[in-house]
């Protein structure tokens, strides 16, 4: 796949308020300006993101497949060895499609961190209580976002399938098997079947997100390796790697299997034909990057005063819009992700942060803003991938096609006209 590096000036300049960004997208670039500083930041943060993500996807699958409806899931964040050794389908020698040249089992830096944490080696439970661990709460927040927004996003067939009779029958079988020897839960299930069904739907989203991130982790690892080898020449290169990756794995099945006493229950079978791109990636981007939900923190929202939109589709609280400055405050979920990434920053990024703002002391925010930049790059990749899939090449000779491309780009960028969007901030380097 090729993205032209320049467009012939066939269209008049865009009159959009973000015309500069539109032109950059039309030239095959990203929303993020192409500077070496930006490239270094985003790749560094991808690496720092990929390590905890390697934990997230394994644990998400573990919860979806094994913990399932456990009424007291105290140990759901304690991944058994089996899941740490689980082979990533896109890394290692036996990969379906080898995206990362590294190993298929859990990343060594992750294993090291799980062992010692920030402090020192001690029993897992103590690490857990001290919060000296990977914060799965962040992953669950993303999952809940997808569950909550799934209904009205219009992407994919996954969410509507959760309401089908077929799904209910599959879930029913699994739930009954799971609580076969637990008469209390069984009686509760009889009394409140919908409650259990809803929990099961949530488990399906655990699986969905786990399968989604299983791919993103090796993609980010590989990008980091390529960068370390001197492979990327600029931000567009990095973005194009993502675009290619999105296509290459678009067909990866999304499913939900539950293992109960050694037997596999296919709540959402692979044969439904659910795909990574449509049922996981696009809903994820919409739900997590754009929408999520307002969280309790230094700012409280008053729904009666219309500070929270009436319609879920108008929610814009995702990372592309987020105010990163309150990170570190109680009740700000991204804090957990920033904290997770802090542990795995590559040295060049640590050096970079030391030289700016408050150095070590506000690294959480500096890396948060880097993360925001990097997610603008990922979103650019999604926009370019959608353009490739649904519209026309950037060097299409037909002006009507180019006009359609521009209309598409402008429609996408219109979502960043909102005052809280950070697109304008990330154009400058002094936003950090």
């Amino acid at each position, binding site marked *: 796949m090729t993205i032209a590096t320049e467009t012939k000036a066939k269209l008049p300049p865009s009159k959009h308020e973000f015309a500069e960004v539109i032109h950059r997208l039309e030239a095959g670039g990203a929303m993020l300006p192409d500077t070496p500083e930006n490239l270094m930041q985003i790749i560094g943060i991808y690496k720092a993101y990929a390590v905890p993500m390697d934990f997230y996807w394994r644990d998400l699958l573990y919860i979806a497949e094994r913990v399932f409806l456990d009424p007291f899931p105290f140990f759901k964040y304690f991944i058994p060895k089996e899941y740490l050794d689980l082979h990533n389908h896109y890394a290692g020698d036996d990969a379906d499609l080898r995206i990362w040249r590294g190993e298929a089992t859990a990343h060594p830096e992750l294993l090291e961190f799980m062992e010692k944490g920030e402090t020192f080696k001690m029993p897992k439970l103590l690490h857990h209580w001290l919060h000296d661990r990977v914060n799965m709460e962040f992953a669950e927040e993303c999952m809940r976002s997808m569950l909550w927004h799934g209904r009205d996003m219009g992407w994919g067939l996954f969410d509507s399938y959760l309401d089908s009779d077929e799904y209910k029958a599959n879930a029913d079988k699994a739930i009954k098997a799971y609580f076969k020897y637990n008469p209390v839960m069984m009686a509760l299930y009889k009394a409140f079947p919908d409650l259990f069904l809803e929990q099961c739907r949530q488990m399906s989203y655990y699986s969905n997100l786990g399968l989604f991130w299983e791919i993103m982790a090796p993609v980010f690892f590989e990008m980091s390796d390529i960068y370390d080898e001197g492979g990327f020449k600029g931000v567009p290169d990095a973005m194009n790697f993502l675009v290619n990756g999105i296509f290459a794995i678009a067909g990866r099945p999304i499913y939900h299997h539950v293992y109960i006493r050694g037997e596999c229950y296919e709540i959402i079978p692979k044969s439904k034909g659910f795909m990574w791109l449509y049922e996981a990636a696009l809903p994820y981007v919409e739900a997590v990057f754009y929408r999520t939900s307002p969280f309790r923190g*230094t*700012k409280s929202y008053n729904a009666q005063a219309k500070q929270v939109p009436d319609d879920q589709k108008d929610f814009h609280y995702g990372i592309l819009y987020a*105010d*990163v*400055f*309150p*990170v*570190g*405050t109680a009740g700000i979920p991204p804090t957990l992700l920033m904290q997770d990434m802090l542990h795995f920053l590559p040295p060049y990024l640590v050096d970079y942060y030391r030289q700016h*703002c*408050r150095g070590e*002391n*506000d690294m*959480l*925010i500096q890396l948060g803003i880097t993360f925001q930049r990097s997610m603008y790059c990922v979103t650019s990749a999604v926009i370019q991938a959608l353009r490739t899939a649904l519209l026309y090449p950037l060097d299409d000779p037909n002006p009507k096609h180019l006009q359609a491309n521009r209309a598409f780009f402008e429609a996408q960028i219109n979502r960043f006209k909102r005052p809280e969007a*950070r697109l304008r*901030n990330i154009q400058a380097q002094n*936003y950090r």
Partner: protein
Amino acid sequence: MLSVLIWVPILGAALIGLWPAAIPASRARLGALVISSSLIVWTVVLLSQFDISNAGMQFSEAHPWIDTLGLDYSLGVDGLSLPLLALTALLTWTAIFSSNESVERPRLYYSLMLLVNAGVVGGFLAQNLLLFVLFYELELIPFYLLIAIWGGTSRRGYAAMKFLIYTAVSGILILAAFLGLTWLSGSSTFDYNSIITAGLPLTTQLILLTMLLVGFGIKIPLVPLHTWLPDAYVEASPPVAILLGGVMAKLGTYGLVRFGLGLFPETWALVAPGLAILGAISAVYGALTAIAQKDIKRMVAYSSIGHMGYVLLGAAAATQVSLVGAVAQMVAHGLILAILFHLVGVIETKVGTRELDVLNGLMSPVRGLPLTSALLVLGGMASAGIPGMAGFIAEILVLQGSYATFPLPTLICVVCTGLTAVYFVILLNRTCFGKLDNNTAYYPQVKFSEQVPALVLAATIFFLGIQPTWLLRWSETTTNAMVATVQLNVNHQLANAIAPTRSYEAKIQLKTPIQKELILTP
């Protein structure tokens, strides 16, 4: 013993200011810190040696100086001045510590700070009226220079001049009152203890007392003599503002109690209702103007006027509880004002503004000034009289003690403590809470050393709030004795007025044995 508190800072100031070789700023600062620390240590020694059961002057020193003028170098300390001495020592140290390390002309600056300390301490210690005026005037010049040279904006010259003119008038009035007092009472000396006003006609006493009230009222300041204050406090750099509001203003309230109440116990009861009303007006005025402010330093400055109103109310009521409350309020006000000015100063240095409409979200834990904000919240709570902190103890005593005597002004002051909460909620809500602006909020970090003064003051405020005995024990005996003389004299006057008629009903109205005795004696 007491001379040390005056002469060490003076010598220190001379040493820092006149040292022949060049001294780097850090060295000058260190010297000033060492000197002010030694003063704290010396004050602690005094505290440990002080006999709290003795109502009179202790550690007295007396040396004849200029006999012809009746000017003696006589010092002494009692329960009224001791807490203020301790406050001065602590706040001088705080002010020096919170001074910008790279202050311009450091040698002059630190010398002046120490001179201010010497002047104020001398005022608290002086047992000779002329000596008091001398010290009272002595600290004016350093303050004028501190505001005029190290002040904030281009208005600093104006503010300093206004301050100088007002307080000079205050000094002249006080001097005139003292001169008149001495001559008219026929005393051969200006010694505090040998002046007795009892023999003077009531009108004369009233005139002299009014002069004193206006003189000290400017210094405190009382509405409507306050207009120099907002300019001076706001233009002065935070350390100077700490000394102005925390220490110098106390010279006004101290003088009011010491010389107004102490020298005119008979006439005090006549002016007290007016003073109580003035106190209430000051409290209302301070609170309402503070609510209207857009500049946090100005807000704190106006809050100071309001809180001094309580001191006046307590002093006016002159009951056992209210007077000890008034002394406690002087100390609490000094501590709270100091912590507030210090924190406002830190915020201004880091954020670059004091505008309420610009400040936002400083409580943010990573990019904001979280500890400074937390301490500011604490300072605001202390100022609003939240229980558990020194301000509460002082205010509750003043209000409780004054209610029986002046119910209406007291109730007004009670409402004003509520208003204090209003403007501090405004201040804290705008400053500490909300969102940091992503475009501008790249503030430098507050260093630990910059937090130290506020931490020390906060600890003191907490300690005195939880252990109020340590705030009150020093002054109780002295203030009780002062109250006794007032009552004694009030009754004496009453008796004089009543005696000629020999009215039987009048005797019945007076109930306490002491009063009966008084009526019967003549």
